[in-house]
């Protein structure tokens, strides 16, 4: 009996030690993808080559880099409101965004590291536009280390120069009404005709930044970009 018990005990220990490592690994990886565990994910990315979006920076590093730059260029007064295509900066979570994505009609995926949600071909009404507006080709929702939304980027590509200029003027007027006056007055270089050039409007507040730009790229027409960021 004693020999039999010892044999079972050895088998149980062997089975446990075999299972322990995968269980520990799964647990560790799961924890690393939580907001609290992201420093660990950053270390794993460096030490073990775990795939990370845009290189191997952690969400905390990206956020420090982003906020540091925006604070230097930020304004002195807060924005009246912080428009962000219907999302709420510093409040919308990745789960909220996923729920929105399911209903948006766009093709969305979460970046490795859970720091961003990328969507393609998002119908305009899903981001507060009119039904007749062109869809957003690329939408990027970026989240900080605490899992809250910090920036929204929307790109529309291949636009005609006149359509891009008109859309930018409409967006700028709406932003001025909702957030406050722009920090940099609109410039109006000639766009299109295969030339590299850009027209932009920038809004800078102590707690919010918005950038609108229409960039003429020789290889793909005019790209209209909207970026809304918390500071």
């Amino acid at each position: 009996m004693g020999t039999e018990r010892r044999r079972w005990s050895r088998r149980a220990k062997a089975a446990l030690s075999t299972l322990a490592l995968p269980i520990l690994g799964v647990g560790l990886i799961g924890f690393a993808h939580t907001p609290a565990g992201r420093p660990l994910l950053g270390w794993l990315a460096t030490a073990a080559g775990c795939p990370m979006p845009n290189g191997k920076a952690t969400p905390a590093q990206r956020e420090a880099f982003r906020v540091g730059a925006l604070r230097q260029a930020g304004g002195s007064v807060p924005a009246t409101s912080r428009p962000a295509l219907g999302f709420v900066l510093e409040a919308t979570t990745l789960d909220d965004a996923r729920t929105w994505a399911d209903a948006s009609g766009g093709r969305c995926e979460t970046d490795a590291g859970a720091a961003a949600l990328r969507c393609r071909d998002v119908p305009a009404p899903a981001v507060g536009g009119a039904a007749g507006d062109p869809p957003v080709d690329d939408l990027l929702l970026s989240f900080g280390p605490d899992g809250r939304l910090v920036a929204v980027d929307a790109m529309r590509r291949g636009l005609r120069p006149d359509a891009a200029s008109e859309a930018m003027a409409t967006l700028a007027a709406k932003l001025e009404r909702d957030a406050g006056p722009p920090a940099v007055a609109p410039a109006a270089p000639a766009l299109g005709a295969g030339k590299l050039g850009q027209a932009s409007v920038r809004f800078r507040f102590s707690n919010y930044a918005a950038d609108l730009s229409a960039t003429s790229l020789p290889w793909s027409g005019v790209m209209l970009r909207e970026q809304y960021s918390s500071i």
Partner: protein
Amino acid sequence: MKTMRFGWVSGLLLSMVLATAATATGCGSDSDGGDDNGSSGQPEQKTLYEKYGGHDTVVLVVKNFIGVVAADTRINGFFADTAADQGRLKNLNDRLVEQLASALGGPETYTGKDMASAHKGMNIKDADFDALVEDLVKVLTDAKVEEADIAAIGGALAPLRKDIVGK
């Protein structure tokens, strides 16, 4: 890896300044580009480095460029871990200043590594490339680089795109 990470940035800067240098010195095929040189038939020997204010302007352009890229959530992850280390950030800044100044015709010498194979394995996508070009144009526009000089960049960037994207 450190040099690889900003290799494509400096590659873009280099192409940009070479293109603008060609325009400003009357070497480009764009006839508009040579108008600034006067009609006496005696081309000015002024470099772009001198035209746009020398070392101080280059330092400012690079500083602003890093700031614009930092705020650009589409691509800031390529640089954020470098920026988290003050020593590496200073190295990135200094090498970019050297490279840009040198290519503009300034007296600085680029002391960084060569850019051969710099883009291999970085998996840079079309959208990443476009984002960086857009940031670059923003900084150049702010630095009052003339439209004709910025427009000349496009010709140099188009072939570069296929060498960088998807490698």
